[in-house]
């Protein structure tokens, strides 16, 4: 009990030390981290022009580029955990949240109300969700140890499409990069780097030879061949759809989540929850005031 009583004092001293060393922003990030745990995902909703960030048990939305955040309540979350978020092109404020114990939930009013979308999935053990870039009702869900499921009716029903890459998938995104036999491409952040497949699920391929745990992947929707990834070895950029990668400047300690905004701003969040922005494709970074 004495240990618990002492905790706030210890934390305050730690926060003061961090403030003296790194400034108030680091304290705010540390406090958020203390409250929500490490960040899980970052996403940009082009319809609503909002940035989204997720922790295992909380979702936040920002309409000012990450300067301030509002918590979004997800009623069906229950004891489940958030693992993935995806904004849909279906309209302003349409997005999906997925995670173990949650399955897939969808909102079409910016998070005011949520609806479960699990009919046809083998379990709620969903580890990633991705929205199709151009087809508003198409969405993908990755179910642990099962594979990738596709829905073409906004999650009302699902169909098994592929077993998926075997190497620890942590994030899946859809891209409308040219050259697909079908309608686009899927990029997966995995334990060995980035894997890539046309959205017909024809053949998984390594996207370059990163050979490192990838935590996140995103792309520039204005130039879809420009892919960005945050890996255990640092941040990397590809200008050719993931064939070749160049290491970028890292904004701070290990970045674990990336998102690209319509305005051309690349966002990176580190494992402490601090947010950084780059207006020059990752050439230089500036910390965002939270």
């Amino acid at each position, binding site marked *: 009990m004495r240990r618990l009583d002492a905790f706030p004092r210890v934390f305050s001293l730690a926060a003061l030390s961090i403030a003296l060393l790194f400034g108030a922003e680091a304290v705010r990030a540390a406090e958020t981290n203390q409250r929500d745990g490490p960040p899980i995902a970052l996403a940009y909703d082009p319809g609503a022009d909002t940035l989204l960030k997720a922790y295992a048990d909380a979702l936040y939305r920002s309409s000012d580029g990450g300067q301030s955040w509002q918590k979004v309540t997800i009623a069906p979350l229950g004891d489940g955990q958030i693992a993935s978020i995806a904004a849909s092109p279906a309209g302003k404020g349409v997005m999906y949240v997925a995670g173990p114990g949650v399955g897939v939930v969808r909102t079409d009013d910016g998070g005011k109300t949520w609806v479960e979308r699990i009919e046809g999935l083998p379990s709620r053990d969903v580890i990633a969700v991705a929205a199709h870039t151009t087809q508003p009702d198409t969405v993908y869900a990755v179910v642990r140890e099962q594979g990738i499921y596709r829905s073409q009716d906004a999650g009302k029903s699902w169909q098994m499409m592929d077993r998926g890459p075997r190497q620890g998938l942590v994030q899946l995104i859809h891209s409308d990069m040219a050259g697909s*036999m079908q309608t686009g491409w899927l990029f997966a952040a995995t334990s060995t780097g980035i894997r890539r497949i046309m959205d017909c699920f*024809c*053949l998984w*391929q390594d996207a370059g030879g990163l050979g490192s745990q990838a935590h996140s992947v995103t792309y520039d929707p204005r130039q879809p061949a420009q892919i960005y990834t945050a890996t255990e070895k640092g941040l990397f950029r590809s200008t050719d759809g993931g064939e070749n990668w160049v290491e970028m400047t890292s904004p701070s300690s290990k970045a674990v989540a990336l998102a690209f905004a319509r305005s051309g701003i690349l966002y990176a969040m580190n494992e402490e929850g601090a947010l950084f922005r780059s207006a020059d494709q990752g050439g230089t970074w500036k910390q965002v005031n939270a």
Partner: protein
Amino acid sequence: MGAMLTAASHVAIVRAADDAPSLDPDSVKSGRSIYGQHCASCHGANAQGAPDWQERDAHGELPAPPHDAEGHTWRHSDAMLYEMVTKGWRDPFNKTTRLTMPAFVDVLSPEQVRAVVAYIKTLWTPEQRRFQLQESRNQPFPHQMP
């Protein structure tokens, strides 16, 4: 005897997909012949694909994939297959500039393309046939569109 064996194997192939949508036997027969003439040299006499088709070759190109149940042809709608056969397709990650799949628009008539696809469908599992049918509902062959 040879003719009997050929006929028997043809029946077996059509029966393999008995619980999938039926195919026009004349179209399948014609497609088999066209396939042998124009496709088999790359995709294999039995549509088994080129060896190591999942890995890029020395030119940095993906070899011709199988068209049977081991490949991914069944994942595409009729419209998409028609387009790929007629217009060809280039893997954007090929290290050469040539088409990965040559264009047959000046070689095969629309009916011949449909016949080849009909033959290829006999090589898929019933599940694959049903999936492909579903994919084709909104994306049929071009001249089947309203």
